[in-house]
């Protein structure tokens, strides 16, 4: 595996900052908004965003939860991996709310589809937006596009884009190539 760092800790901080300001521009006080991190790795990304939002806009009424797409995935009994569930924590009624779903890497779009199906069980939101840190835009298998985007990456299928949270040199995004 050859590793290439696409985004280092400092750059990632800048991206998160920009995404936060975009969110504030669109959602204002966040009164009608619920932010949801997708389990497992989207939660790290969502937590960074929530943390930053609270420092930029301390008075905003930020509602944050976690959603686990496992039980809604379309590869149950079809993949070699066992699909194990992570906690879903949505302590809010989503009826009529503006939901922002967050994940670290958008690849085929199948996880996002499962995540959307899961959160719909908690009520009918007025809208669902998608925020991703990395968009592997050439690999989509479903018609799903991000509303808020950190960085677009073009990659091959034998490559893997991995976001390392809390690594030795802080957070970073790496492109791993299988040789």
């Amino acid at each position, binding site marked *: 595996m050859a590793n290439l760092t696409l985004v280092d800790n400092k750059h990632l901080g800048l991206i998160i900052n920009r995404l936060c300001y975009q969110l504030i521009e669109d959602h204002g006080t966040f009164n009608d908004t619920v932010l949801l991190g997708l389990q497992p790795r989207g939660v790290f990304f969502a937590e960074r965003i929530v943390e930053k939002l609270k420092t930029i806009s301390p008075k905003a009424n930020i509602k944050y939860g976690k959603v686990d797409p496992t039980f809604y995935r379309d590869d149950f009994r079809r993949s070699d991996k066992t699909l*194990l569930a992570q*906690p879903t924590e949505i302590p809010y009624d989503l009826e009529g709310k503006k939901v922002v779903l967050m994940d670290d890497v958008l690849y085929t779009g199948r996880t996002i589809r499962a995540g959307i199906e899961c959160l719909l069980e908690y009520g009918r939101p007025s809208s669902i937006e998608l925020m991703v840190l990395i968009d592997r835009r050439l690999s989509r298998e479903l018609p799903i596009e991000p509303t808020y985007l950190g960085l677009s990456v073009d990659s091959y299928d034998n490559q893997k884009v991995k976001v390392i949270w809390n690594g030795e040199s802080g957070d970073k995004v790496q492109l791993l190539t299988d040789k």
Partner: protein
Amino acid sequence: MNRTLSVKHLLGIKDLTKEDIELIFSQADEFKEVLNRPIKKVPSLRDVTIANLFFENSTRTRLSFELAEKRLSADIVNFSASTSSVKKGETLVDTVNNILAMKVDMVVMRHSAPGSCLFLSKHIDAAIVNAGDGTHEHPTQALLDAYSIREKLGSLKGKKVAIIGDITHSRVALSNIYCLKKLGAEVMVCGPSTMIPKHIQSLGVKVEHSLRNALEWCDVANMLRIQLERQEVSVPYFPSLREYSMQYGLTKEILEGLSKKVVVMHPGPINRGVEITSEVADHTQSIILEQVENGVAIRMAVIYLLAQTRRTEKEVV
């Protein structure tokens, strides 16, 4: 943590590792959350068909399994011996093979013969879940009991659990002993000497014949039902139900007179006034209804994990 179960079937707790049990518990946590959602159903098992074969009567286990299967969106077929061809002399393997010919992926079976689930697992190609085989094991009951204790007391390690009542005829007792020991709890069985199997100490459990001593020792008391249907009339195990209840029945006075708060459990169905009184069954220290609620989550976890393992195995071959 392990990502898959080490077994293809759930025949008994004896075959499970501690890691298997912990994996089932961690998934049951997530299913419990699902059961508290506005929409209590997930689509995971859309293409899985499960046959519930109940050769022996059951109300709550059967309902609990059925509900667990429906909450997972599996297709189910039900079967009970009283309305089937078993009455016409068909063998177990034939009955089940006929059902499997209809493309069933999993079989949940209760049968009066100990070992019937093991026998079936050797003869047919489907995942088997034991829902009680005679006086042998009742693994999902033991899992939900341990899960309920973990939920109430935080962990099983070092906890003292007394299983009280008819130990000889109880599959719940045997499965509970295996499960609790694997999770690091101390276990005591308590009952009249006629209802405690010889050599049960070889399973690493304490034996006690006084209800009060057992209650003073334990953190959790699991009260078992007297299984009159399994006792041969010619061999009396105790003089009368009234005498049993005088010596081994748990009353409010005994429970509240203890030096500590003991958690009371019962696998059901309860004979109110025999092994426990109504006041104890409805007492704040009783977690009988929590057990029933947790039963659905535990059974969802078991079915979900077995359904995945099965597919992985097939693909390796």
